[in-house]
C-alpha cells in the first residue's frame, strides 16, 4: 500500500469523523412537562421514551428508555439520549401502578430531532 494511499485514507477518516457521519453519535437532551397524575409521580411511576429513525413508528418495535420516579414530588422530566447521526423521531408515555398493575398512557405525538450526520 503506497504512502499516498494510506495518507488519503487517514484524511477521509478524519473528515467523516469531523462531520459526525459514518456512525458518529450525538447527545440529545429530551424534556417534557410533568404529568399531574398521582401515580406517575410516586414509586412505580415514571415515563418511557420511545425513539426510532422511522417516522410514524410503532412504539412496540422502537428503542426505548425508562425514566422512572426516584424521589420528591415529581418523576424526572428530562433525560439524555445518545443517538447516531440522522433524523430521529421521539414519543413519550407516562406510567404508574394502578390497583397493583402497571398502567401506561397513550404515547404522545412524535417530535423530530436532527442528530447531525
Amino acid at each position, binding site marked *: 500500500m503506497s504512502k499516498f494511499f494510506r495518507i488519503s485514507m487517514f484524511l477521509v477518516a478524519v473528515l467523516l469523523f469531523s462531520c459526525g457521519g459514518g456512525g458518529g453519535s450525538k447527545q*440529545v437532551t429530551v424534556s*417534557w412537562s410533568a404529568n399531574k*397524575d398521582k401515580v406517575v409521580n410516586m414509586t412505580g411511576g415514571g415515563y418511557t421514551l420511545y425513539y426510532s429513525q422511522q417516522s410514524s413508528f410503532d412504539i412496540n418495535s422502537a428503542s426505548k428508555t425508562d425514566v422512572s420516579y426516584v424521589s420528591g414530588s415529581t418523576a424526572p422530566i428530562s433525560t439524555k439520549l445518545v443517538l447516531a447521526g440522522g433524523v430521529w423521531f421521539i414519543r413519550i408515555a407516562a406510567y404508574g401502578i394502578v390497583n397493583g398493575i402497571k398502567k*401506561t*398512557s397513550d404515547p*404522545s405525538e412524535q*417530535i423530530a430531532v436532527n442528530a*447531525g450526520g
Partner: protein
Amino acid sequence: MLNKLVFISTLLFATNSLFAEYVPGEVIVKLKSSSSISAYANVSEIAGSDLKVIKIDKDKDVMEAVQELAQNPDVEYAQPNYIYHISVVPNDPYFAPKLWGLKNTPQNVPGATYANNPGNLGDDIDAEDAWGIITDCSSIIVAVIDTGVRYTHEDLSANMWNGGVSYPHHGWNYHDSSNDPIDDNGHGSHVSGIIGAQGNNSKGVTGVCWRVNIMALKAFGSDGTGSTTTIISSIDFAINNGANIINASFNLYGSVDAALSTKITDAQKAGILIVAAAGNGYLNDGSAYDVDAGTKTYPCCYTQDNVLCVTALDQKFQRATFANYGATSVDVAAPGTNVWSAWNTNDSFYKIESGTSMATPYAVGVAALVWANNPGYTYLDVKNAVMYGGAVVTSLADTTVSGKVINAYNAVNYINVPRGLTAVVSQ
C-alpha cells in the same frame, strides 16, 4: 375435535385475560400430590390453602408463565393472582331500583317515559367500582347555572356550597337579582342531585359524588329561560368564588354570543372546566341532529378547550333519539334517559327526567371525582380523563369526538398523555 376444543379454550382464555387484572410477577399453582416445584427459587405458601405463589420476573408476561407452568407435569393447575376490587354500595333506597346510569342491573326503572327500559346489564358508568377508590368530592366546588337549587332538599342540603355570611343561600339569583337562588322550576335541583345528592344517607338517590360543594347560580326563571346577562354574571360569580367546574345544561341555538364566549375564556383563564349539554334537537323539539352540519348549539360548540360537550345515551347505550351529536363538537356521551333525581316540589320529592341536561351532570360528577382524586390536575387533565377514560361505544365513533361514554372507574384511573415534549442536540 380435540383441536377444536383447544381452540375454543384458547379463545376463552384470551377473553378472560382482556378483562381480569392480576398481580404482576406472580403465579398461583396447585401441585399434584407429593410433587415439588424445585425449578423455581422463589416459592411461598398461601396461608390456609395448599396452593403456592411463584414469583417470576416482573417483566415476564404472567399469562405466558401460567401457560408454561400449566404444562409442568408436577402442576395440577396454574393461574394468575387476580386482583379484586371492593364495590361500594350506598344505602340510598332509590339506588338499586332506579339509578341505572350508576349501576345497570338491568332494572325496570319505575315511571319511565323513554324507551329501552329495562336496558342492558352493565351499561352504566361503573360508579360502584369508582366509589371503591373515591366518593368524596368535598374539595371541589361545582357551580350549577340553572333554575336555582332547592338547597333545603333532604338529599342536597348537606352538599351545598358554604358562601358564608355574604351568600347565606349558597349562591346568587341573577334572574331576580337577589341572594336567594331557590329553585322555582325543578330542573336545577334535578341536575344538582345527579352530580351530588348526598350518598349513603338512607334517603332518596345518590349523586355521582357523595360529597361535593354545589354552588347555586340562578340564571333561569321558572319558565326555563335565561339571558346572556344572567348567564355571564353567573359565570363571573363562579370565577370569583373559586368554582372548579360549571354545569351548563342549557343551550343557545345558532348565534355566536360574543359576550358569553368572552366570559367562557375568562373561566378558562381561571382554570374552570365548563361541561355543556349538546341539546335536545332544535329548540328542544326532540329531533336530534348533527350540530357540526346544522345549527350549532352554544356553549357546547364553543372551541375553547375548557368546554366539554355531552350527549345522552339510553339504558342500552344507544344515543337517545333527542340527543344532538357532532363528530367535532360533541365530546362524549353519558346516561341521559329515565334519570331519577331530586326535584323542587318539596324537600323529599324526586322526579324522573330525560335529556342531555341530565347527561351533562353525570359527566360533571365524574369530573369532580377525577379532580378530587388528583388535586394537582388542570381543567385539561380532568377533561381528558373524562373524555378518553371512557368506554368505547361503537355507534359513537362518528358522532362524538372521543367515541366514548363516560366511565367513572376508568376516568379516576386515567393517566394523561405527557405534553410539551422537546429535544435539543446538546453535543
